[in-house]
């Protein structure tokens, strides 16, 4: 499977070249175009209960689409819903990644996607919800972000602070806890940050340059209120 990011920046697409018989799984609705040799199947990753739990728990789509080059080699174009960058990672079978619910765009057939429950404080205040996706296995993982995507590399015990809602994915070797952005409760909220995630290495953290929730609130003020 070969892949390439087209039009890098705010409105990118991924071109994935599949050899005959190869498959890729993608977020439902992610396909933009494909060769006529590619068949689209809808699949409940992890079976019905797995799909149901992913839908109910993470808010991810119930079905993933499976794009199979069943009638010969071909290519698929994939794109996310929101404007923002795409990043492709190669999983080595040892590194696992935690991905916030809207971050997954596509992945090789061989990668495994599960829902993972977060601790109460992380779920409540981390901005990613109570459940996130745990992606493991060996193969390509394609993530998308809202805005630009930025990779932070952390050495063992190195700490880094990320505002909640800016997280896209982080490696399983990192840990994080939620804390107030400033020392006082009032200052935490008046600073506009509220809660932040303090990450501790080793590992990598992918962050997005825009906060979807804040963007939504900003857009809302321009929507006329209908009576």
């Amino acid at each position, binding site marked *: 499977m070969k892949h390439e990011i087209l039009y890098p920046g705010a409105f990118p697409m991924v071109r994935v070249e599949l050899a005959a018989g190869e498959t890729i799984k993608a977020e439902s609705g992610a396909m933009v175009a494909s060769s006529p040799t590619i068949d689209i199947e809808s699949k409940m990753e992890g079976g019905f209960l797995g799909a149901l739990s992913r839908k109910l728990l993470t808010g991810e789509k119930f079905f993933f689409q499976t794009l199979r080059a069943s009638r010969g080699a071909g290519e698929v174009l994939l794109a996310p819903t929101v404007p923002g960058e795409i990043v492709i990672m190669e999983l080595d079978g*040892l590194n696992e990644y935690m991905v916030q619910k809207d971050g997954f765009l596509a992945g090789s057939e061989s990668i495994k996607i599960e829902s993972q429950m977060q601790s109460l404080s992380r779920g409540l205040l981390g901005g990613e919800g109570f459940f996130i996706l745990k992606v493991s296995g060996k193969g390509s993982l394609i993530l998308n972000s809202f805005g630009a995507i930025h990779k932070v590399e952390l050495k063992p015990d190195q700490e880094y602070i990320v505002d909640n809602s800016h997280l896209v994915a982080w490696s399983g070797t*990192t840990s994080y806890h939620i804390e107030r952005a400033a020392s006082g409760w009032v200052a935490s909220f008046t600073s506009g940050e509220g809660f932040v995630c303090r990450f501790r290495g080793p590992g990598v953290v992918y962050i997005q340059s825009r906060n979807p929730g804040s963007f939504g609130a900003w857009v809302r003020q321009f929507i006329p209120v209908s009576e």
Partner: protein
Amino acid sequence: MGSATAPTSPNALCFSDGLPSTGLPCHVEISADGLTVRFDEHNGLGDVNLPFRALSVSAGGLNHDQLVVRWGTAPSTQTVYLKDPSLIRTFRSAAPPELMKELDATAAAVRRARSRNRMAWGITAAAIGALMVGIWFSMDLLVGWAVDRIPLDWERRIGESAYQDFLIQHPAVKDGPAVAAVQEISERLIAHIPGNPYTFEVAVVKSEVVNAFALPGGYVVVFTALLQQAENAEEVAGVLSHELNHVLERHALQRIVKQLGLVTTVGIIIGDQQGLARVMKQIGVELLSLKFGRSQETEADVTGLQLLHRSHIDPSGMITFFQRMTQKERGGVEWLSTHPMSAGRAQRLEAEIARLPKTAAEPFTFKWNTVQDALRPVAVRG
């Protein structure tokens, strides 16, 4: 550092300065003396043999599910992250007593963290459960508060639109003995409502369905078939008294507010009465298909009987009409679908009548036969 050996499949990640931040895949082997870390040949790194005494351990990773083995002194500390449970078990069984202590302390810390997490979830679930139960049981109280805050004017507007819509489809009988009789009965009853805030409107509608209903704001509709089925004016008075009391007790509003749910209820309590009509429209609450609850029926029965008594109308008409309709009912008596006459209900009504002091009933000015005679040709022609 030993010599490089044949590559083996990696089972751990090694971290240190100079290695990638995602860790370098390596193969960890555990022996009785310590552990050996092997790297792929192409990395140019040789094997590392480490005796147990050179190691320290801790838990790592997002869920503390990885064993972090550390060696060397800062700033050249190196760590491997072991995730494979069987590898961690092998490490534990080979570890000397002093390292076991550290391992046990680490495991205890992880267990404590996990049980704290579970406890936090448990407490939250219990708190949410308690809140739901509390809301469920105090819902009637909340609805009561909310309904008290709805101005009469609003209630009237809600009822009026449904009343007008109904009358467009089902024209009211304008005059005649039936209308006069219903007016006289209603006026007698309304005159005996203490502190009545409503201006009642009672309409007679030509229909072969035996029915009568009340809308919020004081709009009452009686169908001609109900008048035909009644054996005397007291029975009609019983039905009317019951319906008037649904209005007086604001039962329809209570049902609406309950149907609209908690958000609207709280909204009304906080002061957003204006939104009620809009929300009703949005979710399509049909006033005409609104059914009252059993407790509301009982309340309307009891207060209805008291009103009949105060108005010097024989209250037993209420019971006889319900009972006769129930026996007779084989479809077409719509009123009974919302007012089922159970044995318990009849007994309750009789007990209530027995409790009321005996007073002499005052007759009406019309003859019931005349009313029914007047209805018959109307029904035939219709």
